[in-house]
């Protein structure tokens, strides 16, 4: 037990069905891309952790995908619990996925009150000469939501552009905000995880 535990932070992906959340997740886990909305490659995959180095600090980002629950139903509120960061994803070629962001934002602030929120415009490779969603619109949105958004990014899962940069930046933002927060956190509020026991059926005495 001599290893130093690297702090781990839960990061969740949010946004409409089809904007590329699972593709971002796939880039994060094994740096691949598939064109079909083929769920097989992430079947059974729950979340995935990767270590980032920020200055003298190490931080693990633990990325969670929705499991496709948002397709017809809503995502369970427990998905948001204990999240330190949320990446709000929309597709740059799909204005509807952008205009509905405020709804997803509401879910995040309701169920993951303390999470830092990041905005990600995905599918940048599909950008035509006339952008469907302008930078001004994106800025306006960030202002509208009282600057709840800590960072905005543009990514393409197809080419891989911007994805690693985004997670690097998220990691460094979290390290910064944690410096102060970790000190404030009272251990008391925390529960524990249940783990398999080492089958010590011995000293299980009542008396």
């Amino acid at each position, binding site marked *: 037990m001599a290893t130093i535990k690297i702090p*781990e932070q839960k990061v969740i992906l949010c946004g409409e069905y089809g904007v590329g959340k699972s593709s971002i997740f796939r880039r994060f886990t094994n740096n691949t891309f598939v064109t079909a909305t083929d*769920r097989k490659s*992430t*079947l*059974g*995959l*729950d*979340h*995935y*952790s990767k270590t980032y180095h920020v200055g003298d600090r190490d931080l*693990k980002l*633990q990325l969670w*995908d*929705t*499991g*496709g*629950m948002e*397709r*017809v*139903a*809503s995502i*369970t*509120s*427990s*998905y948001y*619990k*204990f999240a330190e960061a949320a990446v709000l994803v929309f597709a740059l070629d799909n204005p509807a996925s952008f205009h509905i962001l405020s709804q997803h934002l509401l879910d995040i602030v*309701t169920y993951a009150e303390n999470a830092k929120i990041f905005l990600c415009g995905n599918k940048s490779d599909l950008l035509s000469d006339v952008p469907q969603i302008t930078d001004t619109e994106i800025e306006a949105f960030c202002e509208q939501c009282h600057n709840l958004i800590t960072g905005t990014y543009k990514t393409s899962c197809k080419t891989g552009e911007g994805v690693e940069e985004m997670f690097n930046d998220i990691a460094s933002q979290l390290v910064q905000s944690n410096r102060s927060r970790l000190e404030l956190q009272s251990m*008391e*509020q*925390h*529960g*524990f*995880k*249940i*783990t*398999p*026991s080492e089958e*010590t*059926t011995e*000293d*299980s*005495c*009542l*008396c």
Partner: protein
Amino acid sequence: MDEEYDAIVLGTGLKECILSGMLSVSGKKVLHVDRNKYYGGESASICPLEELFSKFGAPAPDDSYGRGRDWNVDLIPKFLMANGQLVKLLIHTGVTRYLEFKSVEGSYVYKGGKISKVPVDQKEALASDLMGMFEKRRFRNFLIYVQDFQQEDPKTWKDFDPTTADMQALYDKFGLDKNTQDFTGHALALYRDDDYLKRPALETIKRIKLYSDSLARYGKSPYLYPMYGLGELPQGFARLSAIYGGTYMLDKPIDEIVIGEGGKVVGVRSGNEIAKCKQVYCDPTYVPDRVRKKGRVVRCICLMDHPIANTKDALSTQIIIPQKQVGRNSDIYVSVVSYTHQVAAKGWFIAMVSTTVETENPENEIKPGLELLGPVRQKFTSVSDYYEPTDEGLQSQIFISQSYDATTHFETTCLDVLDIFKRGTGEEFDFSKIKHELGDEEQ
């Protein structure tokens, strides 16, 4: 919705969510539907508080209750046994990673109008006011017997055959008095009535062992409670189902379960849409004509701004009022959770008093429990029926979960689920199908 599935699961209560998860993991194509807009059905934790008040037709809560969304109020009281079936299921399925728990601080039992802590170790047993001096020694000998007991090793049975002799005989062997029998049977073995006395002692010995094994895991009491309420449990299993390919639909009324040749289910209809399937798994509310009423339950949710007296200000606790203490046939349960579990605003407590209905005046039946609470700021009482399926579902391929003999924990819940799974698929659930390594950090 117009697709074909191996199984359609109706209702997102805990049992249905566990089943859905197990079916998806086993490679079945699953559609999971709920008529409500939220997950969990009756197992949901209600949030925000305003929702709870309006559910019971009460005027909105005032400012003293703090922020409404800091509340997550369970409709059904349950705790998890730390070494019990549900915890095993959570571990084996990996669903435990979605949850955090706290130990319940203490378990109390009611005797002669006041409550005493259920002794958890020798020191507490000796200090306990539940028993007199000599009784304590006898009780201690009894506990040692149970602790040393091994089913596989008849030498540990000490000239007593627990597979044939009943529990009363075992109590008598140790000379335990009625009061000690009462709290042993109801607060340790967690029986709700006294029928167990006439059944082979083995069953009760196992239950007491479960209690002490659970206690050994996290101290304080054998019970665990999840942060943010019990509603987190079904959601965790729903996620398991989703990441293994299960499709979720909420807010979808079910108008008909479509039956084909030989009385076998062929699909489920909502409006004009029909989803085809080979099997349906559901809770009793989706199939009123295939279940029978088994009894009634009264529950009272009490919001309080203080802990319960004589519990050392415990932030969570369970109190069992054994039936005989108050002249009843079934126990009354009081469970308390609080702000420390993120289920109430700072400083607030939620107590739930419940029991099986025995008379025409259920509210009156829970009075002994309510009297222990002290001042209550708001009270919501409800009486509900509980049901069991009329058949095993083998013909119709409609598998219905049952609300069988309630215990204070989830043991029966899990047994029912595993049994339904076996009936439905013809095999035991294979836990090795879960790709633990993939979700975990050790990459």
